[in-house]
């Protein structure tokens, strides 16, 4: 289990605070890089397709004289895809973009809710400052130096980038609940997950993971000689409810 990320704590009427783990510079840079590739491919793809259709031959060259059709159907949409990608998608997807989704992060207001349209647009307008002097230098420096890992646009808009957990856990928890015998909750989850993914993993990888789990929860066991089927059987035995289960 990974070390818990620093988080934002929001008070709740139930007395149990809402905890949102903040995304750091790595997750931010990863999401930005993914988004940059997506918008670049979209913009270039549009330009190339538009240019090929406009020219009617295998050429991407612009016309010699200014032409409204070329400008309106090829150049403007390509530039719009590139420059309006973040503001439009963040507004439409409530603080998310394809890159952020892939990186498992999203933009939230400081109370944990989805930011308003104004906040998202202000956040994006300040990219003009964050991108100075080159390659988002100022924005990156601020993300590294600030406690909440925010760039200038986030400071202005009152937004934060937080990790978004995806939801295969309840099914896993159900399997884990059935396996709570001599295992603790974490161990039961790990055994349940490993058995669930047994066929997806390569034989050496699942054998290594199985051996580690068996040694951890059955100290003194000899596991080096066990083959694939025997390892799986031992894992299932380990996860079987024991006398301790009420």
């Amino acid at each position, binding site marked *: 289990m990974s070390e818990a990320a620093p988080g934002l704590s929001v008070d709740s009427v139930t007395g149990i605070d809402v905890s949102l783990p903040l995304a750091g510079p790595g997750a931010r840079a990863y999401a930005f890089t993914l988004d940059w590739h997506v918008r670049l491919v979209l913009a270039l793809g549009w330009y190339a397709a538009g240019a090929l259709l406009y020219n009617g031959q295998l050429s991407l060259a612009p016309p010699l004289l200014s032409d409204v059709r070329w400008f309106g159907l090829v150049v403007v949409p390509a530039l719009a895809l590139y420059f309006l990608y973040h503001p439009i998608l963040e507004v*439409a997807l409530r603080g998310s973009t394809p890159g952020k989704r892939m990186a498992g992060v999203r933009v939230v207001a400081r109370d944990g809710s989805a930011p308003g349209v104004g906040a998202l647009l202000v956040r994006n307008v300040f990219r*003009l400052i964050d991108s100075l002097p080159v390659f988002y230098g100022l924005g990156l420096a601020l993300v590294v130096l600030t406690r909440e890992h925010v760039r200038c646009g986030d400071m202005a808009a*009152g937004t934060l980038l937080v990790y978004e957990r995806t939801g295969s856990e309840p099914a896993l928890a159900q399997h884990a609940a059935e396996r709570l015998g001599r295992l603790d909750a974490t161990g039961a989850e790990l055994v349940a997950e490993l058995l669930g993914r047994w066929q997806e993993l390569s034989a050496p990888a699942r054998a290594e993971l199985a051996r580690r789990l068996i040694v951890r929860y059955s100290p003194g066991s000899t596991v080096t000689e066990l083959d694939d089927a025997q390892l799986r059987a031992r894992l299932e035995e380990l996860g079987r409810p024991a006398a301790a289960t009420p």
Partner: protein
Amino acid sequence: MTTDAQQQALAAALLKRAPLWLQADARARRLGRGRTEDAADALHLADDYRLLAHDLARARVLMPASRAREFLESAYARAHATLNHGDWRLGSTLRTLFVIELPAAVRWLAPYILWASLVFALAALGGFLLVERYPELIALFASPDLIASVEHGKLWTEGLLNIVPSAVLSVQILANNIVVSLFAYCAGFLFGLGTLYILGLNGLMLGAVFAFVRAHGLGGQLFSFIVAHGCVELSVMCLSGAAGAAVGEALVRPGSAGRVAAFRFAALRSGVVLIACALLLVGAGLIEGYVSPNPAYPLPVRIAIGVGYWLLMLALLTGRLWWFVRAPATSDAPRPA
């Protein structure tokens, strides 16, 4: 029963509630996206919220490092956001933005708009007087092509449509103006100095070019060219400058809230005006591409377009444009920290 066995039993009992968590999370997602109007569903959310809070509190103690706890954190945060902030619909959000937040932001910015307009007007006057007194200084403010054209008795705008089509011209102009306007706002980040510089420079250039053109007997033609789009374009320059000045002042004089909080409040509140500025500049760009360089439009028509568009701008900024829209009951406009 030993403590370990007791913990195991409690964890098992907790994990068996997983299907309930999944239902609660699905309901919070559904309601958060506004995809259901079912009142019973909404009522259930309050129960879900309590259930998730209860289970999360136990999971934090019994199995802090588990993925079940992580899922509960996420589901609880989603239920909290949905319950406390309602659903999120683009239409109602935009309506709140234009009907409530924009007029409120303009009212709040009124003193800044006055000061920004004054700075711009003084800079324009300064540029005008400077070039009128020392004509050779025009080289500091205008390109050699513009100077050569005016010295030959022709405005650089003449025959513009023979070189560039209106649509192309419009898009080039509006894109440039929007970028300048956004920069005037963002430059407030430099304690307001960047905004002051952009406002001053643009005012100086406008005044200097007017003085130079007037000295060559082309002042009337330049006025005729500018009037249709210029009323709104120059007003928007002052508006975005005012927004930048508000951001700058929040950083210079943050008050008791602290610098970051004051900056956030000013940027968020004044930033709403930028959305209107961008929309207005699209219209001004189209006028500048289609009407201003076209000699077929006589001066009275140009004045009517310029003044009419300026009045439309006032109606948009004061919220009077939406007189037929019922004001939303609540606003999520930022409040002072």
